């Protein structure tokens, strides 16, 4: 818990800094631990409900456990027509989990997302925000190998 406070309190004096604090937490844990939301509320002097409301509003944040490596697949229209569905199927098969789930060893989480702004190379996936473009089912294993 002390650890959460160390991270969060760096942003205490920044006006509106709670969102930056959440980003910092997520860089550390790949998600926002539930207890950290309570700590954030205390540090920023706002009701827990409000800190919770902010954390859950933004889709880039995930409150509650997630895998070490977060794989997001863009399903916005340009990626959709470029074959995102086949990439999704390949990822699910390769990892043995469905979209939204985490592998039993806690290494990977699969999530759908909207456009990540790398549309010169549709379909696109990101691993821990790092983009991989022109994805094909064949390329999936190679990308995963970097994180295994």
């Amino acid at each position, binding site marked *: 818990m002390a650890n959460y406070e160390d991270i969060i309190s760096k942003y205490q004096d920044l*006006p*509106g*800094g*709670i*969102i*930056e604090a*959440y*980003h910092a937490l997520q860089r550390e844990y790949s998600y926002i631990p539930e207890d950290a939301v309570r700590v954030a509320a205390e540090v*920023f002097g706002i009701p827990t409900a409000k800190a919770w*409301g*902010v954390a859950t*509003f*933004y*889709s*880039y*944040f995930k409150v509650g456990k997630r895998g070490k490596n977060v794989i997001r697949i863009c*399903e*916005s*229209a*340009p990626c*959709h*027509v*470029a074959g995102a569905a086949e990439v999704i199927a390949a990822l699910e098969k390769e990892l043995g989990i469905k979209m939204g789930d985490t592998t039993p060893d806690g290494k990977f989480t699969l999530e759908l*997302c*909207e*456009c*990540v*702004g*790398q*549309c*010169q*190379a*549709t379909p696109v996936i*990101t691993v821990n*925000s790092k983009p991989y473009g022109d994805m094909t089912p064949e390329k999936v294993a190679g990308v995963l190998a970097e994180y295994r």
Partner: protein
Amino acid sequence: MAEEMRIVLRNYGKIDPLKIDDYMAAGGYKSLEKARSMKQTEVIEEVKKSNLRGRGGAGFNAGMKWNFSYQVQSEEKYVVCNADEGEPGTYKDRIIMENDPQSVIEGMAICGYAIGSKKGYIYCRGEYPYVVDTLNQAIAQAKAKGVLGDFDVEVRMGGGAYVCGEESALIESIEGHRGEPRFKPPFPPVIGLWQKPTIVNNVETFANIPIIIEKGGDWYKAIGAPNYPGTKVLTLTGDVNNRTFFEVPTNTTIREVIFGLGGGIAGGKKFKAVQIGGTSGGFIPESNLDTSIDFDSMNSIGAVLGSGAVFVMDESRDIVDVVARIAKFFEHESCGKCSPCREGTKRMHEMMERLNAGEGSAEDVELLGRLGKVMSVACLCGLGQAAPAPVLTTIKNFNADYQAKFN
């Protein structure tokens, strides 16, 4: 044949974006110096005269907007650069910031001088952590050089909410709240960030400012379409040969973009539709391809220029399937503050899925049309107002695709 014209991307590939000396050797920060030797009102006049209109989608005259903030007496004012870039199929602000971050910072500093603000924020989408790094390095270099004077710039990261591109939601987000749009009026130039006068402009808008100050408003307004002068950075996606970005004068036609620069439809197929401006843009049929891309011409065909995303679909594409996908986007991104949008996007998605699965009827199409009309007038912010556009324009222009689903 259409040709590129690089104003915003004038330094693209010519300078090292992480070397401020390169930027300055190319004339960078001379415009800020020049602006500071002018009266504030003169700077605003020059920008007004250029008729530069916002590149973030709403097309408002930048100089006029600045004048609103200038006229308000206030100890504190803010300059905010909208780098939330959430419109699917759009990545032009990323290209600008990655390749020439100083031009954006210089544009913001000129705005700061003109309106009397000493503090700028760049609100950069959370999906671009690598751009945030570039921006922070660029700001540090500008501060170390002392070129910004007493103008400070800080980068804030968005949290992956499309609605935060809407300026009042963006302001709420910088303040550390949920990104829900505010009721307007008052508008941000008068009451914005922390209740102070705030100019929110798009990345591309700011990147245009230094060259306008350098060469003058008259020079700028002679480029492209008279009512929306200058250039626009476009990003091409979908079934087009050259899936890349181009900067073109605003009097370039859609046809020139797709079949000239874009190299035509991929795989030798035929053109079917193009959606311009991002996911909230209208779908445009072949018969309108000779329209120029400027703001007003696009509006006149029931479409928008928006962010400048150009999403091309060939003859093999199922329009209903694409629009169903888009409807899911809006249901997901609706912030839920007002009911016409919260409920409307949900029902719209439901009906589109039903139609797409072949379980819909002509009655659904009729209902969609009515719901869409209500949403476009009753929703609080631009998200809900524009959400029906893909549905309404495809019912109108691509009705056969709908008919095929239930006949």
